[in-house]
């Protein structure tokens, strides 16, 4: 047998040499020093190529979670919600005792409500709720029970109307915003579309959810009549949120903030608290 070719050496090293060839190959190898040396060279090459390929394996999902901070928000928020729920039930049980005086000037957190579906804010509740609902998803409970989520929920409005327009180009974006759009850092942009007076940027979170940033020039926003104290450009939250935080009747604004000269509203399939944190990260 003449010297073995490179392909045969690799097939042997890969365990893919057919039986008939295998016996010829091993017989030749036993008497050919050159081929034995080449086999060792090819073995090193195969190992080297395997090591190089191992360097470009996809990162583990754990590593990816570490790289995206909002993934870390969710568990603490869930814990916070659990604690808040226990606290709320405790307060309810306490207030429901016979003869107990109940404060009536407090906005009761709406217990049953979808997490990010808009609700027109309810009037301050006159008294204790008749019952605590025993059903509802964890997400609903999470949002409803977290004190900060209460004000956020009152402020969350439906997502902007589904943008009918196709993806916009940069010129259009600059035309509408007079600058480049702001983004949630680290989240891939899936789509940028036109909205009536601005643009909608869709970004995908590491967890797969799509959030929408509805961006428009701050000057183009007409403050609603209910929000007499118009938010200053530097305001972190809208007047409604601040009102809600202060216990005043909320004005039905969206979860929004001002970034430079842009007004940015956020919507997405996440608890209001998480959306609020994400909104803080937008730059």
């Amino acid at each position, binding site marked *: 047998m003449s010297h073995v*070719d*490179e*392909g*045969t*050496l*690799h*097939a042997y090293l*890969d365990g*893919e040499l057919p039986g008939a060839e295998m016996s010829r190959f091993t017989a030749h190898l036993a008497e050919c020093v050159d081929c034995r040396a080449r086999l060792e060279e*090819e073995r090193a*090459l*195969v190992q*080297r*190529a*395997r090591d*190089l*390929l191992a*360097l*470009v*394996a*996809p*990162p583990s*999902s754990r590593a*990816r979670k570490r790289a995206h901070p909002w993934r870390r928000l969710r568990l603490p928020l869930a814990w916070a919600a659990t604690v808040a729920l226990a606290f709320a039930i405790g307060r309810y049980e306490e207030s429901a005792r016979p003869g107990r005086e109940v404060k009536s000037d407090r906005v009761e957190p709406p217990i049953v409500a979808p997490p990010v579906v808009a609700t027109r804010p309810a009037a301050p509740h006159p008294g204790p709720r008749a019952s605590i609902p025993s059903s509802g998803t964890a997400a609903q409970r999470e949002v409803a029970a977290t004190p900060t989520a209460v004000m956020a929920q009152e402020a969350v409005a439906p997502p902007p109307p589904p943008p009918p327009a196709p*993806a916009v*180009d*940069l010129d259009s*974006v600059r035309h509408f915003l007079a600058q*480049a*759009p*702001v*983004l949630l*850092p*680290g989240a*891939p*942009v899936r789509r*940028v579309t036109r909205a009536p007076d601005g643009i909608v*940027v869709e970004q*995908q979170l*590491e967890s*797969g959810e799509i959030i929408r940033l509805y961006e428009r020039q701050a000057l183009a926003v007409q403050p609603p009549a209910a929000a007499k104290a118009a938010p200053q450009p530097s305001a972190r939250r809208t007047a409604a949120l601040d009102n809600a935080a202060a216990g005043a009747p909320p004005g039905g604004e969206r979860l929004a903030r001002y970034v430079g000269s842009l007004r940015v509203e956020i919507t997405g399939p996440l608890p209001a608290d998480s959306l609020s944190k994400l909104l803080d990260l937008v*730059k």
Partner: protein
Amino acid sequence: MPDDLAEVYRTTYRALVRFLYRKVWDADRAEDLAQEAFTRALERRPENPRGWLFVVAANMARDEARRAARERRHLTLLSGEQPAAAPPSDETLHAELQRSRVRAALEQLTPRDREVLLLWDSGLSYDEIAEQTGLARGAVSTTLARARRRLVEAYEAGSERSHVARG
């Protein structure tokens, strides 16, 4: 999921993600595409699901690359403002540099050599690779040998260039 496909999922899913990742270079997207491939397999019930999945995955990765190229044209400027991140450690930088060199080396291979190498690394046998690529079984080993050699050579040439550039 039928039993046979469930078994293929159990044994092949990670390999399929790895195969896709080395084509689209986005871990999330690779997982999305792998799941999409399995969804299609559920609908189509191919005779040889494992080989079929890699064929479909390769096609999807090709479409994805075209789509990504189009999106990059639209969005390069939109994503221009990157967040200020903490400076990476030397170790992180080194690992990242190595990864980018391997990636560059892989991209220097011919499409055929790269495909065969990635399929082998994903756990396909010579017979499966031959069936998928249309190569004769005997040609798989020579293609694989060439691909490995070129990968290592391209990687080392890239390392040398960077050493020279740094002086």
